Every structure is written in C-alpha cells, then in structure tokens.
C-alpha cells in the first residue's frame, strides 16, 4: 500500500516539466512566426548590410563599405533630416492634441461613445492609401483647402508641391490620427481617484491648477507609454509619403522619409546591401531614442508606488 501511494503521488518537478512542455507546444505557432518571419529575415539583413547585393546575383562581403557610403550620401542625410523633423514635431503635437481632447471628453459629455468613436476613426484610417489620396485631393492645387481660402479672399497654393509646406501637411495628417493615444489617455484619466480633485477643490485649486498638479503627474506613465509607441511608429512612417509623392519623396526630397529611401534603394535601385545597412541604422537609432526616453523617464514619470 505504501509503495502504491508512493507511485501515485505526483512529483511536483515532473508536473511542472509537463506543463512547461505543453506551454511550449502551444507556443510553437508564435515561435515559428518569430523565427521565420522576424528573426531569420533580421539575421539575413544584418549579414546583407555588410555585402554588395543586387538581388539577382550573390552577395559579396564588403565590410563596412555600406556604412561609410552613408556619410557621403546627401540623400541619406536628407531622409534623416525629414524623418527627424517629422518625429520631433508631429509626436508631441499629436500627444498634446490627444490629451486635450481626452480631458474634454472625460468631463461627462452627452454622447461620449459617439465622440470617442468618431475621434478614434482617423487612427484606423490615417495610414490607409485611400485616406492619403483623399489628403492629396484636399491639399492639392484645386483642393478643398484652397477653395476655402479662396472663399475668404486668400490665394492658395499646392501645399503638397511646395517643399516648404509638403512635410507640414504630412505632420497635420499624423496629428489628425490622434484617436489611438486619446483612447489610452481616456482610460488613464478614469484611473485617477476622484478624491484628489475633491481635495484640490477644497483647497481652492482652479481647473488649470488641477490639470497641471493632479492630471498631468498622474498620467505621466500613460504619456510615457504613448510617447514610446508614437515615436517608434513615426520613425517608420512610409505609406503617407509614398502615396503623396508617388514614391519619389518629392518635391525635391522634402518628403523623403527614411523608410521610403530604404525602399527606393532596395526595390528601385536593387541595392539591397545598402538598403539593409540603412535599415539597421534606423533600428539602432530607434533603439537609442527609446533608451534615451527610458533614461529620461526617471525624471518626469511618476508611478503610483514612487
């Protein structure tokens, strides 16, 4: 009997091992996806970054040549400049706009679900080809914006064909897709205890003071989360510039986003080695900017347990 009980008693270690194996079986689809769709291409592109590869032939190892070539490549610097301006202008603007609207919607408006849906819609559509084409029509020479300006006696221009305004137009398009961070802000606002505001009111704090001294500090983890997401997404902007400029990055490279330049090098010039090197530089820059955000977050992000 004693031996029977001994046999039946499950060994805690083996149960955990079995569960662990089962978990890995369920994870196989994801692991396969990660390996075949992400890790293998990532590794291949890292190798190609150090080669001269024109897609049709075989890659030949060239060391750091592709990276050295970037230093003297004017279009690389143009693309970097366009992307940096886009990221550092559009992301803060978009987050400010999203926060402002989230605070307004959080005040218990009638028909809140409708407004929330309506404001969220551009986030779903913003990067779609159809919306970008619509944007091109709105800001074109004979577009809606110029019609409205003409109505008030102002002569318009082709906003997308003027190098001084083309990028700004794309920034406006990005800011317009504020719905996604706005919904996250709304969720964050609901987590702030009402007692804080009540205590502040008792102390005579105005609405603006409440916003700056309660809402913003309590929302900093959410702001940080949105900042990271939107920054990474903005560095990777492609569709808008591709459709607006017909894939050229024009006029005169004023909308030559970094990813568009990578695409031009890889798929138009067949210079896949250089395109891979460019892609890795972008990955490293995004990694560095994200790391910087995390380092700086220690000074301005307040978690509940701080």
């Amino acid at each position: 009997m004693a031996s029977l009980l001994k046999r039946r008693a499950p060994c805690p270690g083996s149960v955990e091992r079995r569960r662990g194996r089962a978990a890995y079986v369920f994870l196989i689809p994801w692991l396969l996806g990660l390996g075949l769709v992400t890790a293998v291409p990532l590794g291949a592109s890292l190798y190609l970054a150090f080669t001269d590869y024109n897609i049709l032939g075989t890659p030949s190892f060239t060391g750091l040549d592709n990276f050295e070539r970037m230093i003297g490549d004017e279009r690389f610097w143009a693309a970097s400049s366009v992307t940096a301006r886009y990221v550092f202008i559009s992301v803060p603007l978009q987050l400010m706009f999203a926060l402002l609207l989230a605070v307004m919607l959080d005040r218990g408006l009638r028909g809140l679900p409708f407004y929330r849906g309506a404001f969220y819609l551009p986030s779903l559509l913003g990067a779609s080809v159809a919306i970008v084409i619509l944007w091109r029509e709105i800001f074109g020479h004979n577009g809606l914006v110029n019609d409205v300006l003409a109505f008030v006696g102002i002569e318009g221009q082709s906003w997308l064909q003027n190098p001084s305004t083309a990028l700004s137009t794309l920034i406006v398009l990005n800011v317009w897709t504020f719905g996604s961070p706005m919904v996250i802000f709304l969720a964050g606002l609901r987590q702030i205890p009402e007692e804080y505001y009540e205590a502040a009111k008792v102390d005579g704090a105005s609405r603006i003071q409440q916003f700056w001294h309660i809402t913003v500090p309590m929302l900093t983890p959410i702001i940080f989360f949105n900042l990271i997401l939107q920054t990474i997404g903005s560095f990777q902007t492609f569709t808008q510039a591709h459709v607006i400029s017909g894939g050229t990055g024009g006029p005169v490279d004023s909308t030559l986003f970094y990813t568009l330049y990578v695409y031009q090098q890889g798929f138009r010039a067949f210079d896949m080695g250089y395109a891979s090197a460019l892609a890795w530089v972008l990955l490293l820059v995004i990694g560095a900017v994200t790391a910087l955000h995390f380092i700086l977050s220690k000074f301005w992000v307040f978690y509940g347990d701080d």
Partner: protein
Amino acid sequence: MKNFNRRSFLALTGMGALGATGLMAGCGSGSSGATLRYAWWGNTVRQQNYTRALEEFQEAHPEITVDPEFAEYGAFQERMTTQMAARNVADIFWIASSQVMTYEANGLYRRLDDIPTLDLSDYSDDDIASFSFDGELLTMPHGVFAPVTRFNETFLEEDGVELPGEGWTWDELSEFLIDYAADNPNGRRGASYTPDQDMALEAWLRQRGQDLWTEDGSTGFDAEALGDWFEWWRVLLDEGAVLSLGEQEGMQPDFSAVGDSILLNFGSSNHIIDEAAMFPDYKYRLRSVPVGEGAADGHRFLYFPRLAIYSGIDDDRVEAAGQLVNYNVNNSDFLRTVGLTMGAPPNPRLLQEAYEFASEDEVEMLGVVEAVREEERRPRYEAPPGTGTWREALSRASEGIALGNAGVSETAESLIAEIQSGIDQGA
C-alpha cells in the same frame, strides 16, 4: 470509430499526403499540357484586353493554360523585384525600359532564336540584329514607339492659331508656346512642364550627336547638352508658357487632370491612344518633336518595349512559351483584341494589317512610327545596369530647377554624376 487509433490516423494522413502530392504533380507540366505565367503591366483597359487575348490563346491551344499576372507599372516592378529575389519570375514577362540590360547582365532571359514554335520569318535579318544583344536574341519587341509632340487640334482651331511648319525647330516651338500662353483667350498654357520626358530628352541629345547611353554602358551626354535642355524648359516656365509644378500637381502630371488646360505635350507616340480617349470631344494629332538646326545624321530613333522568357523555365514548357510569344508578336487576332496601346507592331506584316482595324488616333500613331522607321537611324543603346532610378533622378533635378533650388549647369553636372555613380554601383 472505436478502432480509429493513432496508428490509423497516421496511415490516413500519409495516404492523404501521397494523394495530394500526386494531384500537385498532375497540375504541373505533365505530358497532357503546360501551364504558363504571363506578366504584364498597364491600366484597367489593357488588363481586360490582354486577359481576353490570353483566353483566346487558350481556346486556340487547349493544351496550354495561361495564368495571367497583371499589375500597374510601379507595382509590376516591385513584384518583379521580389520574384527575382525568390527566383520565381513569370515564364513570360514584359521588361521595363530601365531594366532591360540589368536583367540581361543577371541572366534573366532565355534565348529565343532556338525555340521552334517562335516564327521569326516576318522579320528581316537587320530587325533581328537590332533586337539582339551581342548577337543573341534574348528579348522580343512587342511594340514600337517614337518620340512625339501631341497637340490638341480643337484648341488650335478655337484659338485661331497655327503651329510652326512641319520642320519646326526647338526655338520656334519655344516662341510659339510663349506667345500662345500670353495671347490665347481661354487662359490655356502651351504645355505641361516635363523636362523629365525621357524620349524627348533623348531626341534632343541625339540631334546634338550625343546619346542617352553608350554601347559600353555609360552616360552618352555631357552637362552642356543637358543644361541646355533644362534651360529650354526653364525659360518656358519663367514666361508662364507651361504649367507650374503646383498647377500640374508635381512632375509627371496626370493627363486627365491637365489635358483641358494645355495645347500640347511631349510623349511616346502610343500615349495618344489612352490619353485622347480621356477627352473624346477634342481632336488630337501627333507630330515629330522639333529638330534643332544642324541636327546630327541619323538622330531619329524608335523605342521597342520588350518581353522575354524567363531563363529558369523548365525545358518541357519552352515550346509552349514560344507559342505564346509567337501569338503575342506575330498574330493579328491577338493585336485586334489588345489594340495598339503598346504602339505600332514591330512585325512588318502586322503593321500593314493593323491599318485595317486601327482607329483614327491609332492610324495617326502608326503613320508617325512608320515615317521614322523609314528614316536612317544610328544605333540606339539600352540603359545599362545600375540606371534603374535614373528617371526619378531626372524628375528630381527638373523639380529642383522649377523651384529655383539650383542653376541648370550645376543641376546637369550633379545629375550626370548621380547617374554615373549608379552605373558604377551596378557594374
């Protein structure tokens, strides 16, 4: 059901896999027939016409199945790039002009003159030699274009003006366009701003005794000739004779958007067919591009869009592919179905037959091509490897001049340097 254990399941699965493998083998190039992939580009009308023509081919050759692979021009090139990387190119494919020699250098073409089902008897030895690279027939032209100016005859009549005479020069055209834009009562411009129209630029260069590309695969023109070309356009732009970049919404304007505000434009002779159809109320005519004084002998030229058979095709499908290429380039039924949007037929017999069913615009196009074909022409060379983006660079340079970002000489020099750098990279 009780007896359906793991062993039964595995046996059943194995039998299923065997069956599927057998079925898939049957779908391939068995003795009963061949399946071919045919890739081309264009607009919706061309997609429909070619799909119908491929169906007619299959009715005439029931042993051959054709899988059509159509895309818009830009998407076609992207797909080709991906397919080339995967070594999975369509069996028969059209070739974008800037990629002809790039593909050749990388062995993408299968030789054509040893395929018994491809009949070359309609072509002269000179024709075959001009289609070949280093004596090997690797691609087959399926159209012929000439550089032209297309003008709106209705506008000329409405505005009561006449173009300079047939032997017009670039200077005469420039003066005419400036006067027309200044004086016409309907506020029309002379032309769209298109210094990046590659065939017009090539005509300009050849008249000066230069070439776009040399036989040994380099740029065949100097900064002075290119700078003069940019200057010719800059004057027109400054004088308001052509549309501004804003008015035409960037380089390479959409003709459907600007066609009713310009008198003429530069282009390939075949464009009249699709673009005249956008404005059925207007009558369009073609005329050869102007000729500079003292133009070099043999400056006229024709461009041949090409198709090829993929070098990776299985040997047992080569004859079927030859039949389809033969149907494409030598059969008048095919031509009647697809129309003449790809220009005049390169086959001299088909060219004459085409007049029987050609529309008024198509007859105009055929006449222009035939006239150039009869003239003496010095050799023309295809774009060398590494020039896949030269037209984008030309557009960017033209854009920069229009926006006053740089002078014409400086732009011409930097453009040539950029193109040459691409060639060096692609070598």
